Protein backbone atom coordinates (compact mmCIF):
# COMPACT_ATOMS: atom_id res chain seq x y z
CA UNK A 1 0.00 0.00 0.00
CA UNK A 2 1.45 3.39 -0.93
CA UNK A 3 1.06 6.66 0.90
CA UNK A 4 -1.31 7.88 -1.79
CA UNK A 5 -3.88 5.19 -1.13
CA UNK A 6 -3.46 4.89 2.64
CA UNK A 7 -6.97 5.32 4.00
CA UNK A 8 -6.40 4.95 7.75
CA UNK A 9 -6.12 7.75 10.27
CA UNK A 10 -2.78 9.55 10.33
CA UNK A 11 -1.19 11.03 13.44
CA UNK A 12 -0.38 14.72 13.41
CA UNK A 13 2.95 14.89 15.25
CA UNK A 14 3.73 17.98 17.31
CA UNK A 15 7.13 19.34 18.37
CA UNK A 16 6.55 17.43 21.64
CA UNK A 17 6.02 14.08 19.93
CA UNK A 18 8.19 14.30 16.80
CA UNK A 19 11.14 12.34 18.28
CA UNK A 20 8.75 9.50 19.16
CA UNK A 21 7.38 9.20 15.62
CA UNK A 22 10.85 9.66 14.10
CA UNK A 23 12.26 6.87 16.27
CA UNK A 24 9.54 4.44 15.18
CA UNK A 25 10.54 5.07 11.56
CA UNK A 26 14.07 4.09 12.57
CA UNK A 27 12.90 0.84 14.18
CA UNK A 28 13.21 2.05 17.77
CA UNK A 29 10.77 3.08 20.48
CA UNK A 30 11.87 6.20 22.34
CA UNK A 31 10.25 7.30 25.59
CA UNK A 32 10.56 10.64 27.35
CA UNK A 33 12.61 10.68 30.53
CA UNK A 34 12.64 13.75 32.76
CA UNK A 35 16.18 15.13 32.84
CA UNK A 36 15.64 16.48 36.35
CA UNK A 37 13.92 13.65 38.27
CA UNK A 38 14.38 10.75 35.79
CA UNK A 39 10.70 9.84 35.67
CA UNK A 40 9.69 8.17 32.41
CA UNK A 41 6.42 9.38 30.93
CA UNK A 42 4.19 8.45 28.02
CA UNK A 43 2.39 9.45 25.80
CA UNK A 44 4.76 12.29 24.80
CA UNK A 45 3.96 15.64 26.41
CA UNK A 46 5.84 18.82 27.32
CA UNK A 47 6.18 18.68 31.11
CA UNK A 48 7.07 16.06 33.73
CA UNK A 49 4.00 15.50 35.89
CA UNK A 50 6.20 14.70 38.92
CA UNK A 51 8.56 17.71 39.02
CA UNK A 52 7.14 19.95 36.24
CA UNK A 53 10.43 20.27 34.41
CA UNK A 54 10.50 20.83 30.65
CA UNK A 55 13.96 19.28 30.49
CA UNK A 56 13.55 15.97 28.70
CA UNK A 57 15.79 13.34 27.21
CA UNK A 58 14.67 10.45 25.05
CA UNK A 59 15.59 6.90 26.06
CA UNK A 60 15.19 3.73 24.05
CA UNK A 61 12.63 1.25 25.41
CA UNK A 62 13.44 -2.45 25.57
CA UNK A 63 10.25 -3.31 23.69
CA UNK A 64 9.34 -5.88 26.34
CA UNK A 65 6.05 -5.71 28.14
CA UNK A 66 3.06 -7.55 29.53
CA UNK A 67 -0.65 -7.47 28.70
CA UNK A 68 -2.72 -5.16 30.92
CA UNK A 69 -6.00 -5.44 29.02
CA UNK A 70 -7.35 -5.87 25.50
CA UNK A 71 -10.35 -5.67 23.18
CA UNK A 72 -11.18 -7.44 19.94
CA UNK A 73 -12.89 -5.06 17.53
CA UNK A 74 -15.53 -6.44 15.15
CA UNK A 75 -17.39 -3.28 14.15
CA UNK A 76 -16.13 -1.07 11.31
CA UNK A 77 -15.80 2.28 13.07
CA UNK A 78 -13.79 3.65 10.14
CA UNK A 79 -13.63 2.46 6.54
CA UNK A 80 -9.85 2.43 6.53
CA UNK A 81 -9.78 -0.41 9.07
CA UNK A 82 -12.62 -2.49 7.62
CA UNK A 83 -10.38 -5.03 5.90
CA UNK A 84 -8.48 -5.65 9.15
CA UNK A 85 -11.57 -6.80 11.08
CA UNK A 86 -11.65 -8.47 13.50
CA UNK A 87 -8.48 -7.21 15.17
CA UNK A 88 -7.08 -7.16 18.69
CA UNK A 89 -6.02 -3.98 20.44
CA UNK A 90 -3.86 -4.60 23.43
CA UNK A 91 -2.98 -2.38 26.39
CA UNK A 92 0.57 -3.17 27.42
CA UNK A 93 2.59 -2.46 30.55
CA UNK A 94 6.04 -1.68 29.20
CA UNK A 95 9.03 -2.76 31.25
CA UNK A 96 9.84 0.94 31.71
CA UNK A 97 6.65 1.47 33.77
CA UNK A 98 4.40 3.18 31.22
CA UNK A 99 1.71 1.77 28.94
CA UNK A 100 0.83 1.75 25.27
CA UNK A 101 -2.21 0.72 23.29
CA UNK A 102 -1.50 -0.87 19.92
CA UNK A 103 -2.44 -3.70 17.61
CA UNK A 104 -1.63 -7.25 18.74
CA UNK A 105 -0.36 -9.35 15.88
CA UNK A 106 -1.80 -12.71 16.88
CA UNK A 107 -4.84 -14.72 15.80
CA UNK A 108 -7.99 -13.16 17.31
CA UNK A 109 -8.94 -16.46 18.97
CA UNK A 110 -5.66 -16.57 20.93
CA UNK A 111 -6.46 -16.98 24.61
CA UNK A 112 -5.08 -13.84 26.26
CA UNK A 113 -4.42 -13.22 29.92
CA UNK A 114 -3.33 -10.30 32.03
CA UNK A 115 0.43 -10.45 32.49
CA UNK A 116 1.11 -12.40 29.29
CA UNK A 117 4.50 -11.27 27.89
CA UNK A 118 4.60 -9.38 24.60
CA UNK A 119 7.27 -7.72 22.52
CA UNK A 120 7.19 -4.61 20.39
CA UNK A 121 7.03 -4.90 16.60
CA UNK A 122 7.05 -2.19 13.97
CA UNK A 123 4.34 -1.77 11.32
CA UNK A 124 5.42 0.15 8.22
CA UNK A 125 2.19 2.00 7.41
CA UNK A 126 3.39 4.54 4.82
CA UNK A 127 6.86 5.61 3.68
CA UNK A 128 6.78 8.26 6.42
CA UNK A 129 4.85 6.46 9.16
CA UNK A 130 5.71 3.44 11.27
CA UNK A 131 3.17 2.37 13.88
CA UNK A 132 4.02 0.44 17.03
CA UNK A 133 2.49 -3.01 17.41
CA UNK A 134 2.93 -6.02 19.64
CA UNK A 135 3.44 -9.75 19.21
CA UNK A 136 3.20 -12.46 21.81
CA UNK A 137 6.63 -13.17 23.26
CA UNK A 138 7.57 -16.84 23.21
CA UNK A 139 7.90 -17.44 26.94
CA UNK A 140 9.67 -20.79 26.67
CA UNK A 141 12.27 -19.79 24.09
CA UNK A 142 13.57 -16.82 26.09
CA UNK A 143 14.11 -17.75 29.71
CA UNK A 144 15.39 -14.27 30.50
CA UNK A 145 12.15 -12.59 29.37
CA UNK A 146 10.90 -10.43 32.21
CA UNK A 147 7.38 -10.80 33.54
CA UNK A 148 6.55 -7.41 34.98
CA UNK A 149 3.16 -8.73 36.04
CA UNK A 150 0.73 -6.48 37.84
CA UNK A 151 1.59 -2.97 38.84
Amino acid sequence: MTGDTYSKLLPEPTPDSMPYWKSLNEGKLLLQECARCWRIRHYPRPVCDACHSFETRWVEASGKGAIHSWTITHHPFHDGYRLDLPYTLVTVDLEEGVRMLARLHAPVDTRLEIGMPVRLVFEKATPGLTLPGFALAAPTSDVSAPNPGER
Partner: protein
Amino acid sequence: MALKERVAISGVGETAYSRNSGKSVLALQLEASLKAIEDAGLSPRDIDGIIPYSNSVVVAEDFVTNFGIEDLRFSATTPLGGASCVAGIQAALLAINAGLCNHVLLPIGRNGSSSGRIGTRVQQMPQFKVVGEFEMPTGAIAPAQLYAAMARRHMELYGTTSHQLGEIAVSTRHNAILNGNAMMTKPITIEDHQNSRMISDPLRLLDCSLESDGGAAIVVSAAERTKDLRQIPILVMGVAEGHPDSPSSITQRPDMTRLGIAKASPKVFAMAGVAPREIQVAEIYDCFTYVVLCQLEDIGFCKKGEGGPFVESGAIRLGGKLPINTHGGLLSQAHMVGMNHVVELVRQLRGSAGKAQVSGAELGLVSGYGDMGDGSIAIMRRG
Protein backbone atom coordinates in the same frame (compact mmCIF):
# COMPACT_ATOMS: atom_id res chain seq x y z
CA MET B 1 -22.99 22.87 54.48
CA ALA B 2 -23.35 26.27 52.90
CA LEU B 3 -24.29 25.06 49.43
CA LYS B 4 -26.73 22.33 50.44
CA GLU B 5 -30.27 22.92 49.18
CA ARG B 6 -29.55 26.44 47.97
CA VAL B 7 -30.93 25.57 44.54
CA ALA B 8 -33.69 23.40 43.17
CA ILE B 9 -34.65 21.99 39.81
CA SER B 10 -37.76 24.03 39.09
CA GLY B 11 -38.63 22.85 35.58
CA VAL B 12 -37.88 20.05 33.13
CA GLY B 13 -38.69 19.58 29.45
CA GLU B 14 -38.10 17.09 26.65
CA THR B 15 -38.94 16.88 22.96
CA ALA B 16 -39.97 13.64 21.31
CA TYR B 17 -36.95 11.36 20.80
CA SER B 18 -36.43 9.90 17.35
CA ARG B 19 -33.95 8.77 14.70
CA ASN B 20 -34.72 11.69 12.43
CA SER B 21 -36.19 14.82 13.97
CA GLY B 22 -36.36 16.84 10.75
CA LYS B 23 -35.63 19.88 12.93
CA SER B 24 -32.53 21.95 13.54
CA VAL B 25 -30.49 21.37 16.69
CA LEU B 26 -31.33 24.92 17.70
CA ALA B 27 -35.07 24.32 17.28
CA LEU B 28 -34.83 21.13 19.35
CA GLN B 29 -33.04 22.95 22.16
CA LEU B 30 -35.47 25.86 22.10
CA GLU B 31 -38.46 23.50 22.17
CA ALA B 32 -37.12 21.54 25.16
CA SER B 33 -36.14 24.77 26.92
CA LEU B 34 -39.55 26.39 26.46
CA LYS B 35 -41.17 23.25 27.87
CA ALA B 36 -38.88 23.33 30.91
CA ILE B 37 -39.51 27.04 31.48
CA GLU B 38 -43.27 26.56 31.09
CA ASP B 39 -43.12 23.55 33.45
CA ALA B 40 -41.47 25.75 36.07
CA GLY B 41 -44.10 28.44 35.65
CA LEU B 42 -41.57 30.98 34.46
CA SER B 43 -41.38 33.24 31.41
CA PRO B 44 -38.48 32.77 28.99
CA ARG B 45 -37.43 36.31 29.93
CA ASP B 46 -36.97 35.24 33.55
CA ILE B 47 -33.95 33.18 32.54
CA ASP B 48 -30.86 35.10 33.66
CA GLY B 49 -28.24 32.38 33.37
CA ILE B 50 -27.50 29.78 30.66
CA ILE B 51 -25.15 26.81 30.60
CA PRO B 52 -25.17 25.47 27.04
CA TYR B 53 -23.74 22.04 26.23
CA SER B 54 -20.07 22.51 25.36
CA ASN B 55 -20.06 20.02 22.48
CA SER B 56 -23.01 21.72 20.77
CA VAL B 57 -23.27 24.26 17.99
CA VAL B 58 -25.88 26.11 20.06
CA VAL B 59 -24.56 28.94 22.25
CA ALA B 60 -26.01 31.15 24.99
CA GLU B 61 -26.49 33.98 22.50
CA ASP B 62 -29.05 31.88 20.61
CA PHE B 63 -31.32 31.87 23.66
CA VAL B 64 -30.90 35.60 24.23
CA THR B 65 -31.93 36.19 20.63
CA ASN B 66 -34.86 33.77 20.54
CA PHE B 67 -36.26 34.49 24.00
CA GLY B 68 -35.65 38.24 24.05
CA ILE B 69 -33.68 37.97 27.30
CA GLU B 70 -32.72 41.53 28.18
CA ASP B 71 -30.03 40.95 30.79
CA LEU B 72 -28.32 37.58 30.69
CA ARG B 73 -26.10 37.77 33.76
CA PHE B 74 -24.28 34.47 33.65
CA SER B 75 -23.13 31.99 31.03
CA ALA B 76 -20.55 29.22 31.17
CA THR B 77 -19.92 25.76 29.85
CA THR B 78 -18.88 22.62 31.71
CA PRO B 79 -16.88 20.61 29.19
CA LEU B 80 -17.05 17.11 30.68
CA GLY B 81 -18.70 15.29 27.79
CA GLY B 82 -21.51 13.17 29.17
CA ALA B 83 -20.79 14.45 32.67
CA SER B 84 -21.53 18.02 31.51
CA CYS B 85 -25.22 18.15 32.44
CA VAL B 86 -24.84 17.22 36.10
CA ALA B 87 -21.61 19.24 36.36
CA GLY B 88 -23.64 22.14 34.96
CA ILE B 89 -25.92 21.93 38.00
CA GLN B 90 -22.83 22.53 40.15
CA ALA B 91 -21.89 25.58 38.06
CA ALA B 92 -25.46 26.89 38.29
CA LEU B 93 -25.41 26.41 42.05
CA LEU B 94 -22.22 28.45 42.38
CA ALA B 95 -23.53 31.28 40.21
CA ILE B 96 -26.91 31.41 41.97
CA ASN B 97 -25.40 31.13 45.44
CA ALA B 98 -23.04 33.99 44.60
CA GLY B 99 -26.04 36.16 43.80
CA LEU B 100 -25.27 36.49 40.11
CA CYS B 101 -28.57 35.12 38.87
CA ASN B 102 -31.76 33.29 39.89
CA HIS B 103 -32.91 30.99 37.11
CA VAL B 104 -30.29 29.12 35.07
CA LEU B 105 -31.31 27.21 31.95
CA LEU B 106 -29.40 24.03 31.04
CA PRO B 107 -30.38 23.07 27.49
CA ILE B 108 -29.22 20.17 25.38
CA GLY B 109 -30.25 18.90 21.99
CA ARG B 110 -28.76 17.06 19.09
CA ASN B 111 -29.35 15.29 15.86
CA GLY B 112 -27.11 12.52 17.09
CA SER B 113 -28.73 9.97 14.80
CA SER B 114 -29.51 11.84 11.61
CA SER B 115 -26.46 14.12 11.40
CA GLY B 116 -23.63 11.59 11.36
CA ARG B 117 -21.95 8.89 13.33
CA ILE B 118 -20.82 9.76 16.84
CA GLY B 119 -17.72 7.61 16.35
CA THR B 120 -16.35 9.80 13.59
CA ARG B 121 -17.13 13.08 15.32
CA VAL B 122 -14.98 12.13 18.30
CA GLN B 123 -11.79 12.55 16.28
CA GLN B 124 -12.33 16.28 15.99
CA MET B 125 -12.82 16.85 19.73
CA PRO B 126 -9.88 18.47 21.56
CA GLN B 127 -10.40 16.28 24.63
CA PHE B 128 -9.55 13.27 22.44
CA LYS B 129 -6.35 14.72 20.95
CA VAL B 130 -3.98 12.40 22.83
CA VAL B 131 -5.97 9.36 21.78
CA GLY B 132 -6.25 10.90 18.33
CA GLU B 133 -2.51 11.09 17.85
CA PHE B 134 -1.28 7.95 19.59
CA GLU B 135 -4.13 5.42 19.54
CA MET B 136 -6.60 6.14 16.74
CA PRO B 137 -4.02 5.51 13.96
CA THR B 138 -3.59 1.94 15.23
CA GLY B 139 -7.33 1.33 14.98
CA ALA B 140 -8.72 2.45 18.37
CA ILE B 141 -11.22 4.85 16.82
CA ALA B 142 -14.26 5.01 19.08
CA PRO B 143 -15.17 5.20 22.77
CA ALA B 144 -16.62 1.67 22.57
CA GLN B 145 -13.13 0.32 21.91
CA LEU B 146 -11.45 2.38 24.62
CA TYR B 147 -14.09 1.43 27.19
CA ALA B 148 -14.01 -2.22 26.13
CA ALA B 149 -10.46 -2.44 27.46
CA MET B 150 -11.71 -1.10 30.82
CA ALA B 151 -14.50 -3.68 30.84
CA ARG B 152 -12.13 -6.52 29.91
CA ARG B 153 -9.77 -5.56 32.73
CA HIS B 154 -12.70 -5.57 35.19
CA MET B 155 -13.82 -8.98 33.96
CA GLU B 156 -10.37 -10.48 34.29
CA LEU B 157 -9.74 -9.03 37.75
CA TYR B 158 -13.18 -9.60 39.29
CA GLY B 159 -14.88 -12.28 37.22
CA THR B 160 -17.52 -9.91 35.85
CA THR B 161 -19.48 -11.55 33.01
CA SER B 162 -21.22 -10.49 29.82
CA HIS B 163 -24.45 -11.92 31.29
CA GLN B 164 -24.16 -9.45 34.13
CA LEU B 165 -23.74 -6.58 31.67
CA GLY B 166 -26.78 -7.99 29.88
CA GLU B 167 -28.88 -7.63 33.02
CA ILE B 168 -28.31 -3.86 32.82
CA ALA B 169 -29.42 -3.80 29.17
CA VAL B 170 -32.51 -5.90 29.86
CA SER B 171 -33.75 -4.02 32.92
CA THR B 172 -33.11 -0.67 31.23
CA ARG B 173 -35.14 -1.75 28.19
CA HIS B 174 -37.97 -2.87 30.46
CA ASN B 175 -38.11 0.63 31.92
CA ALA B 176 -37.97 2.32 28.51
CA ILE B 177 -41.11 0.50 27.45
CA LEU B 178 -42.93 2.03 30.44
CA ASN B 179 -41.74 5.54 29.61
CA GLY B 180 -43.86 6.51 26.62
CA ASN B 181 -41.13 8.69 25.05
CA ALA B 182 -38.47 6.09 24.35
CA MET B 183 -36.91 5.11 21.04
CA MET B 184 -36.80 1.43 21.93
CA THR B 185 -40.16 -0.18 22.62
CA LYS B 186 -39.56 -3.92 22.19
CA PRO B 187 -38.62 -6.07 25.20
CA ILE B 188 -35.27 -7.86 25.16
CA THR B 189 -33.97 -10.90 27.04
CA ILE B 190 -30.52 -11.90 28.22
CA GLU B 191 -30.45 -14.27 25.22
CA ASP B 192 -31.10 -11.32 22.88
CA HIS B 193 -28.20 -9.53 24.54
CA GLN B 194 -25.92 -12.55 24.19
CA ASN B 195 -26.94 -12.97 20.55
CA SER B 196 -26.43 -9.31 19.63
CA ARG B 197 -23.40 -8.78 17.44
CA MET B 198 -20.02 -8.08 18.96
CA ILE B 199 -18.94 -4.46 18.58
CA SER B 200 -15.64 -4.48 20.43
CA ASP B 201 -15.25 -7.46 22.72
CA PRO B 202 -16.56 -7.67 25.42
CA LEU B 203 -19.09 -5.00 24.40
CA ARG B 204 -21.98 -6.20 22.24
CA LEU B 205 -24.49 -4.08 20.35
CA LEU B 206 -26.94 -4.20 23.26
CA ASP B 207 -24.21 -2.95 25.61
CA CYS B 208 -24.07 0.29 23.59
CA SER B 209 -26.25 3.38 23.85
CA LEU B 210 -28.43 4.80 21.11
CA GLU B 211 -27.77 7.59 18.65
CA SER B 212 -30.69 9.96 18.98
CA ASP B 213 -32.33 13.14 17.78
CA GLY B 214 -34.07 15.33 20.31
CA GLY B 215 -33.73 17.89 23.06
CA ALA B 216 -33.96 18.07 26.85
CA ALA B 217 -33.62 20.94 29.30
CA ILE B 218 -33.88 21.83 32.96
CA VAL B 219 -34.15 25.07 34.90
CA VAL B 220 -32.07 25.41 38.08
CA SER B 221 -33.50 28.10 40.36
CA ALA B 222 -32.56 29.68 43.67
CA ALA B 223 -34.44 27.59 46.24
CA GLU B 224 -35.87 30.73 47.83
CA ARG B 225 -37.36 31.71 44.45
CA THR B 226 -39.27 28.46 43.94
CA LYS B 227 -42.02 29.03 46.48
CA ASP B 228 -44.34 30.74 44.01
CA LEU B 229 -43.50 28.51 41.07
CA ARG B 230 -45.69 25.84 39.56
CA GLN B 231 -43.97 22.62 40.67
CA ILE B 232 -42.73 21.03 43.86
CA PRO B 233 -39.08 22.13 43.97
CA ILE B 234 -36.58 19.31 43.76
CA LEU B 235 -33.79 20.45 46.04
CA VAL B 236 -30.16 19.82 45.16
CA MET B 237 -28.72 18.45 48.41
CA GLY B 238 -25.29 17.82 46.98
CA VAL B 239 -23.46 18.01 43.67
CA ALA B 240 -19.85 17.39 42.64
CA GLU B 241 -17.65 16.63 39.67
CA GLY B 242 -14.60 14.36 39.61
CA HIS B 243 -11.85 13.85 37.07
CA PRO B 244 -10.05 10.52 36.78
CA ASP B 245 -6.32 9.99 36.92
CA SER B 246 -4.88 10.31 33.41
CA PRO B 247 -8.07 11.87 32.06
CA SER B 248 -6.87 12.08 28.45
CA SER B 249 -5.67 8.49 28.13
CA ILE B 250 -7.39 5.48 29.67
CA THR B 251 -4.34 3.45 28.67
CA GLN B 252 -2.12 5.35 31.11
CA ARG B 253 -4.64 5.39 33.99
CA PRO B 254 -3.07 3.74 37.06
CA ASP B 255 -6.33 1.91 37.91
CA MET B 256 -8.31 1.42 34.73
CA THR B 257 -11.38 0.35 36.73
CA ARG B 258 -11.68 3.60 38.71
CA LEU B 259 -13.60 6.50 37.18
CA GLY B 260 -13.61 10.19 38.07
CA ILE B 261 -16.89 9.77 39.93
CA ALA B 262 -15.01 7.80 42.61
CA LYS B 263 -13.46 11.12 43.66
CA ALA B 264 -16.74 13.05 43.55
CA SER B 265 -18.91 10.53 45.40
CA PRO B 266 -17.57 10.92 48.95
CA LYS B 267 -17.91 14.70 48.54
CA VAL B 268 -21.50 14.57 47.34
CA PHE B 269 -22.68 12.20 50.08
CA ALA B 270 -20.95 14.37 52.70
CA MET B 271 -22.51 17.52 51.26
CA ALA B 272 -25.98 15.97 51.17
CA GLY B 273 -25.60 14.32 54.56
CA VAL B 274 -26.96 10.98 53.40
CA ALA B 275 -25.54 7.50 52.79
CA PRO B 276 -25.73 5.39 49.61
CA ARG B 277 -28.14 2.92 51.25
CA GLU B 278 -30.70 5.73 51.71
CA ILE B 279 -30.97 6.45 47.98
CA GLN B 280 -34.37 5.29 46.68
CA VAL B 281 -33.86 5.75 42.94
CA ALA B 282 -30.77 6.47 40.81
CA GLU B 283 -30.34 7.55 37.21
CA ILE B 284 -26.86 6.36 36.24
CA TYR B 285 -25.18 7.55 33.04
CA ASP B 286 -25.27 4.59 30.68
CA CYS B 287 -23.36 5.18 27.47
CA PHE B 288 -22.35 1.52 27.85
CA THR B 289 -23.58 -1.15 30.27
CA TYR B 290 -20.10 -1.55 31.75
CA VAL B 291 -19.93 2.15 32.59
CA VAL B 292 -23.08 1.70 34.72
CA LEU B 293 -21.59 -1.28 36.55
CA CYS B 294 -18.34 0.56 37.27
CA GLN B 295 -20.16 3.66 38.53
CA LEU B 296 -22.33 1.59 40.88
CA GLU B 297 -19.07 0.51 42.53
CA ASP B 298 -17.36 3.89 42.41
CA ILE B 299 -20.42 5.64 43.87
CA GLY B 300 -20.43 3.15 46.74
CA PHE B 301 -23.64 1.21 46.11
CA CYS B 302 -21.45 -1.91 46.25
CA LYS B 303 -17.76 -2.66 46.68
CA LYS B 304 -15.22 -2.58 43.85
CA GLY B 305 -15.50 -5.81 41.93
CA GLU B 306 -19.00 -6.61 43.21
CA GLY B 307 -20.94 -4.71 40.55
CA GLY B 308 -21.61 -7.91 38.60
CA PRO B 309 -23.31 -9.84 41.41
CA PHE B 310 -25.05 -6.61 42.51
CA VAL B 311 -26.84 -6.12 39.19
CA GLU B 312 -27.42 -9.85 38.77
CA SER B 313 -29.31 -9.91 42.08
CA GLY B 314 -32.07 -7.81 40.54
CA ALA B 315 -31.20 -4.84 42.76
CA ILE B 316 -31.36 -2.36 39.89
CA ARG B 317 -34.78 -3.41 38.59
CA LEU B 318 -38.00 -1.59 39.36
CA GLY B 319 -39.00 -3.11 42.69
CA GLY B 320 -35.34 -3.87 43.54
CA LYS B 321 -33.46 -2.17 46.33
CA LEU B 322 -31.96 0.43 43.97
CA PRO B 323 -34.02 0.93 40.82
CA ILE B 324 -31.88 2.64 38.19
CA ASN B 325 -32.52 4.27 34.83
CA THR B 326 -36.25 4.16 35.29
CA HIS B 327 -36.73 6.05 32.00
CA GLY B 328 -34.70 3.68 29.84
CA GLY B 329 -31.49 5.68 29.87
CA LEU B 330 -29.17 6.25 26.95
CA LEU B 331 -29.37 2.54 26.21
CA SER B 332 -33.07 2.44 25.42
CA GLN B 333 -34.80 5.83 25.82
CA ALA B 334 -32.47 8.21 23.95
CA HIS B 335 -28.92 9.53 24.06
CA MET B 336 -29.54 13.02 25.40
CA VAL B 337 -26.11 13.15 27.06
CA GLY B 338 -27.67 12.44 30.44
CA MET B 339 -29.99 15.44 30.59
CA ASN B 340 -32.80 12.89 30.25
CA HIS B 341 -31.45 11.29 33.43
CA VAL B 342 -31.84 14.56 35.31
CA VAL B 343 -35.34 15.03 33.87
CA GLU B 344 -36.31 11.53 35.00
CA LEU B 345 -34.95 11.95 38.52
CA VAL B 346 -36.96 15.14 38.90
CA ARG B 347 -40.12 13.35 37.73
CA GLN B 348 -39.48 10.46 40.11
CA LEU B 349 -39.07 12.80 43.06
CA ARG B 350 -42.17 14.77 42.09
CA GLY B 351 -44.06 11.48 41.94
CA SER B 352 -44.94 12.03 38.28
CA ALA B 353 -42.90 9.26 36.63
CA GLY B 354 -45.91 7.35 35.39
CA LYS B 355 -45.72 3.59 35.06
CA ALA B 356 -42.06 3.55 36.13
CA GLN B 357 -42.72 5.49 39.34
CA VAL B 358 -40.73 4.19 42.31
CA SER B 359 -43.33 4.33 45.03
CA GLY B 360 -42.59 6.84 47.76
CA ALA B 361 -39.37 8.09 46.12
CA GLU B 362 -38.27 11.26 47.87
CA LEU B 363 -34.47 10.94 47.74
CA GLY B 364 -32.57 10.17 44.56
CA LEU B 365 -29.26 10.38 42.75
CA VAL B 366 -28.16 11.17 39.21
CA SER B 367 -24.74 10.69 37.65
CA GLY B 368 -22.91 11.81 34.55
CA TYR B 369 -19.94 10.23 32.79
CA GLY B 370 -17.98 11.45 29.82
CA ASP B 371 -14.78 12.05 27.91
CA MET B 372 -13.11 8.78 28.94
CA GLY B 373 -13.79 9.02 32.66
CA ASP B 374 -14.98 12.45 33.83
CA GLY B 375 -17.73 12.09 36.39
CA SER B 376 -20.46 14.16 37.98
CA ILE B 377 -23.05 13.31 40.58
CA ALA B 378 -25.97 14.99 42.33
CA ILE B 379 -28.27 13.98 45.17
CA MET B 380 -31.72 15.52 45.25
CA ARG B 381 -34.85 15.38 47.37
CA ARG B 382 -38.43 16.45 47.10
CA GLY B 383 -38.77 19.93 48.62
